[in-house]
């Protein structure tokens, strides 16, 4: 038995156990260590199962532990059901993905499959272990109108009404769509990768497209991000959108590092990290890959990354995006301050303060049209009130 690495000391007992289990994907003896730790720390299976369920890791843990005799039968039986249900759900996602990709290909729109769909194709040989909550596709901004029209023709509709038509294209990085059915099919159509005007204006998507790899989804042609771009995207996504929390997301990154361990061009990654001003997300994420997950990240890369200094702009944006419980008002202010140019800011301000009446009626469930004007001051009041909401 290896002596516990220092990183274990800082984690709670269940997190240590889960990390050791998940490391079983990369090193066999990790499962023996997981079992030893479980017994030594007197963990309770119900608590562990609850945490695993909360982290959406049940199918993956089942795939890893199903052959371990120390997994209680009752837990294994329940996890097996979740595992099979997840397989079914992912099969539906892949069938739908194929339908969408073929339709987009038919109108000459190229798409990059992101996150779960891409990991399923490139890393997991089995559809069951990794849960997917939606499909994520990246298209070029110029292709957005054709892409949306094509996807809407397949039965999809926006999940949220825009405050004013076109505001999402101008200020967001994605649009959320959904096709209703027995199993709802959520789809996020991206044209940029991070939810901040700062990155939408500065992140050149050319590199992501130029380094993308071709992939086949159930017979339909598409692209997935190249290894460095995938690592960059998932790491920044974890840090900026999930505040660095969630074993499922960090496990994805560990899978990418492990899967592409001989192919990753670390120098290229570092170059792009600096160029895109994504130093802080990578400084948070990459050392953990080596420490917690035991996947191979070169020491030289970690040292170089640690020596980078983020610009004051990046530090400000990182702090804003990772602040917990951001109020509506603060988010609004952060977006406004991250924009370049007064004209652009005024346009944003006007549309946020005076949304279309159709939006107002849906958003505030206004029963009579004549009441709508009174809800504008109400909207501003709610926004003002949230200023006093403390960002903890």
């Amino acid at each position, binding site marked *: 038995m290896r002596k516990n690495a220092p990183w274990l000391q800082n984690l709670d007992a269940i997190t240590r156990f889960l990390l050791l289990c998940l490391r079983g994907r990369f090193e066999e003896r990790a499962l023996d260590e997981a079992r030893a730790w479980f017994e030594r720390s007197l963990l309770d299976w119900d608590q562990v199962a609850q945490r695993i369920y909360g982290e959406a890791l049940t199918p993956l843990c089942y795939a890893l532990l199903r052959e371990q005799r120390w997994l209680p039968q009752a837990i294994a039986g329940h996890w097996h059901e979740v595992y099979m249900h997840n397989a*079914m759900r992912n099969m*539906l996602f892949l069938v739908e993905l194929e339908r969408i990709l073929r339709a987009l290909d038919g109108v000459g729109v190229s798409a990059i499959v992101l996150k779960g769909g891409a990991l399923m194709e490139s890393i997991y040989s089995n559809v*069951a272990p990794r849960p997917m909550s939606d499909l994520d596709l990246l298209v070029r901004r110029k292709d957005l109108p054709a892409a949306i029209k094509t996807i809407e023709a397949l039965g999809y509709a926006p999940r949220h009404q825009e405050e004013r038509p076109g505001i999402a294209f101008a200020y967001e990085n994605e649009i959320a769509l959904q096709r209703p*059915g027995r*199993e709802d099919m959520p789809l996020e159509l991206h044209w940029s990768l991070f939810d901040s005007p700062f990155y939408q204006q500065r992140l050149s998507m050319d590199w992501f497209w130029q380094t993308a790899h071709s992939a086949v989804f159930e017979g339909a042609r598409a692209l997935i991000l190249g290894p460095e771009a995938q690592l960059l995207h998932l790491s920044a996504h974890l840090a900026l959108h999930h505040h660095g929390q969630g074993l499922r997301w960090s496990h994805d990154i560990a899978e990418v590092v492990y899967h592409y361990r001989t192919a990753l061009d670390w120098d290229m990654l570092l170059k792009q990290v600096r160029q895109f001003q994504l130093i802080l997300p990578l400084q948070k994420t990459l050392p953990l890959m080596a420490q917690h997950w035991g996947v191979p990240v070169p020491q030289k890369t970690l040292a170089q990354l640690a020596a980078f200094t983020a610009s004051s702009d990046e530090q400000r944006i990182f702090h804003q995006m990772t602040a917990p419980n951001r109020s509506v008002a603060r988010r609004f202010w952060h977006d406004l301050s991250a924009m370049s140019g007064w004209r652009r800011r005024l346009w944003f301000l006007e549309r946020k303060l005076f949304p279309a009446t159709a939006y107002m009626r849906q958003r505030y469930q206004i029963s009579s049209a004549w009441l709508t004007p009174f809800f504008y001051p109400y909207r501003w009041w709610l926004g003002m009130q949230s200023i006093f909401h403390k960002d903890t």
Partner: protein
Amino acid sequence: MTTMLDGNQKVVLMENTLMQQLEYDSVLLNLETEQYFGLDEVGTYMLQVMLDAPNLHKAYELLLAEYEVTPQRLEADMARFLDELMEHGLITVTQDDDGAG
């Protein structure tokens, strides 16, 4: 009540059925109803043999050679298995045109 097996019939997946092999087991998904049916390792193997074989008689012979089971027991198990999958609208049987077997 189980179906009497006709050795000249061939098992095929219904057009709207998707079969996905997992690590050990497999999932059969009816795309129309979005209902799924899980098969364990043995069930997955049995169905794969039946789908690959030119007819049920050949599948029966292959499975009989593979498993330590009496012919009567295997025939009953195959009939029950096929009944269940047909009830869920996942497979159907067609006549083997070659009549082999």
